């Protein structure tokens, strides 16, 4: 069943997943490559994200990722997820700053 997505004015979407080998969080860039930092994520409009999502799910096994889905973000220098949950996924656990995801990773 398709999930309902609430996208506000000025918001967009990015695609995320976990790496199969180590479970670490990755973000899909404009070339379809999974990157560690959300700074590299391709910003998708509500109109064009579905085809990108479909393609990403289709190639998940060969790309070595699991659990592909979309995340609502506010575009900027670095896309900022709207929800706390996704901000924590993007930037790391707030209680262990030493484990923060480096934006240039």
């Amino acid at each position, binding site marked *: 069943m398709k999930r309902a997505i609430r996208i506000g004015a000025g918001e967009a979407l990015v695609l995320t997943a976990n790496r*199969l080998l180590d479970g670490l969080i990755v973000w899909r860039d404009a070339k379809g490559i999974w990157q560690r930092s959300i700074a590299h994520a391709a910003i998708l409009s509500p109109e064009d994200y579905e085809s990108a999502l479909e393609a990403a799910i289709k190639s998940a096994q060969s790309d070595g990722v*699991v659990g592909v889905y979309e995340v609502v973000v506010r575009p900027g220098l670095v896309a900022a997820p709207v929800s*706390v949950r996704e901000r924590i996924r993007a930037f790391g656990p707030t209680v262990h700053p030493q484990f923060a995801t480096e934006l240039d990773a």
Partner: protein
Amino acid sequence: MNAPVGLYQYQTADREFLASRIAEFEGQVQRRLSGELSEDEFKPLRLMNGLYLQLHAYMLRVAIPYGILDSRQMRKLAHISRHYDRDYGHFTTRQNIQFNWIKLEETPEILRQLADVDMHAIQTSGNCIRNVTCDQFAGAASDELMDPRVHAEILRQWSTLHPEFTFLPRKFKIAISGSPHDRVAARFHDIGILARPGENGPLFRIFVGGGLGRTPLVGHELFDSVPEADLLMTLEAALRVYNAYGRRDNIYKARIKILVQALGIDGYRKAVEHELSLMDPAHYRLAPETVAAIQARFAAPDLTAAPDAEARLKNDRQSDIAFDRWVRSNTHPHFAPGRIAVTVSIKPAGGIPGDATSDQLDRLADLADQFSFGELRITHLQNVVLAHVAQDRLLELWQALNDIGLGDANHELIGDIVACPGLDYCALANARSIPIAQKLSARFGDNALQEEIGKLRINISGCINACGHHHVGHIGLLGVDKRGEEFFQITLGGRDDALSRTGDILGAALPEDDMVDAIARIVDRYLSIRETGEQFLDTLTRLGDAPFKEAAYETV
């Protein structure tokens, strides 16, 4: 037999089973990596081996059967956290330990390392009978009626890979205690067991249908006095009724508590009695010689203490106020003269409840060797117990604990906060539990202040699944999501002892930013209105929640 103290000594058959299980899982991992297994196919297989995919990485939950482990096992956990994780482990409210940054490809090797010290991650996930939990002072407490560890081990052996109960409607949690003071939250388990000696052998009082989560319910007494011979048959019948009639159509209504609620305790008991009438008692009988054989695989420590041990402790307490305070809050009377049970708080001021670094784990193992026969217990309040410390060496132990930052005097006080991993790590959570726990424990970090406040337990859950047991916190906090932002609902008056009840919701959820101040105002109000000798729950019972509600929402 040169067995470790306090826990069951594995046999060759146990070790062969673990080796074959790991080999099987290694094959499954390889098939997943090659694409032969899809994620949907692989997920239940990895969960059966304790491996979850959490928010940031894979999480491995390692079983600590009835919460007891020895120093070599603790050192192995330190080794795993240092070499395969990020240098720390997290003790859970079910007496297990979790590692949050595990790599799938390294998991079979980690499981092999665990098996080297007779440990595993089986029964830490899935819809099976989970790792059995037990009183942290088992075999040590002066108030104990009966040592429950042998029967906890019997339950472990009975439940491990039980073919009939491997695919239950939902997970199933059993706790057992031998104390009249329920220290295992027996009434909040799917089955809770309180053991006591009888004229003709042990008797077991069995509660059923308790639980927290989305539908918090206090368990009902199923039977008052089950004899030892009938223990397994009774449990088997209770589970068989659940397995047959528990709901599988709705995950939120699949726990046994919902079935017991639907049938009523009398209806459920009748169904169990009917099931028992169909069973062959001889087949299920727990024979005394079986119990004796398992008992023989536990080594008993020599608890003889120096004749002047108690006098020396008394003297040490008089010479150091802080030590004296720690003894008051963090020790429990032992049945053996000159011995005492110690709760090591894994809740330093401003720290993460239940988190211990690799170095701390190693040092705890060393201290267990030096002070408690190499034996440690993990508590459901996320602390560590050294159960058999000689009283004349208690000061030395406390000083050593202070050296590793674990000498806080806060057991069962406001700094002894129970918190789930929350949204910082858990894929199910709505809100972060740990930061609030850290801020509260820092705010109330002064041990003298904590003692003045008295017994007051705060439990924090990041979602309705209630892994932080917020329903039974004297003050409970439940994280909720409001349009992607964190809010917390406050409950007051929960408890998980013999007077078990769930807390009452105080009012509308508050934003995360307001929570610490709101709790501080509740505590301040309590201090200003309590009568001499009252603890927080006493004042709450006397006055109701109105004064606390007024305090909590005073600036909102």
